[in-house]
């Protein structure tokens, strides 16, 4: 299994506060992703990265920013959290073009915005 750790695993915060979720991988995968999972919506892509300092938006990127200063770390930031951002957030990694297409997922970070 790919070594992917997410922190924190659980967080409760208040509306308007900043929140940063961290994803750390030990597999040297080029691609990293942040998804959110909500009932009835499956997983929706927030942002992804295809290399250090190379990121792009996914389908639900409003209100989120990301940064990747090292291959192994991918940070997701909510600048000013809102109740609609209450969700379970998953980080995933992939080896890139020419690979098997498999994504490896972390165990998720449950965020509650009050």
């Amino acid at each position, binding site marked *: 299994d790919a070594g992917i750790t997410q922190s924190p695993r659980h967080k409760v915060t208040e509306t308007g506060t900043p929140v940063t979720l961290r994803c750390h991988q030990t597999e040297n995968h080029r691609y990293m992703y942040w998804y959110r999972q909500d009932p009835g919506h499956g997983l929706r892509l927030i942002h992804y990265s295809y290399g250090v300092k190379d990121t792009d938006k996914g389908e639900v990127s409003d209100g989120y920013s990301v940064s990747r200063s090292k291959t192994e770390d991918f940070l997701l930031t909510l600048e000013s959290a809102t109740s609609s951002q209450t969700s379970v957030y998953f980080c995933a990694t992939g080896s890139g073009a020419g690979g*098997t*297409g498999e994504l490896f997922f972390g165990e998720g970070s449950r965020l509650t915005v009050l």
Partner: protein
Amino acid sequence: AQSVTQLDSQVPVFEEAPVELRCNYSSSVSVYLFWYVQYPNQGLQLLLKYLSGSTLVESINGFEAEFNKSQTSFHLRKPSVHISDTAEYFCAVSGLPGGSRLTFGEGTQLTVNP
């Protein structure tokens, strides 16, 4: 653009019964198809994938899926389910085989009852 539709949000079955989880996709390019499984309080893990070649693909735990290009489907089947198969199953599509953006369906909760 690509999209995935999982036709059933919940599928309850009895142990040792057969099951089919339905997935339809739409894409303007050649597709690569995946089924992921999520056990309670865990991240997703790859169950099986279709990249090319034989349209029937199998997993190590008895699931199989068939790529049907004419019907744009990738249904997941198992002839006899176990209690331990209880989980949420996600169908996903990608336009590239590796490290690309997967689009997920909304998920199907399979519940196997004794």
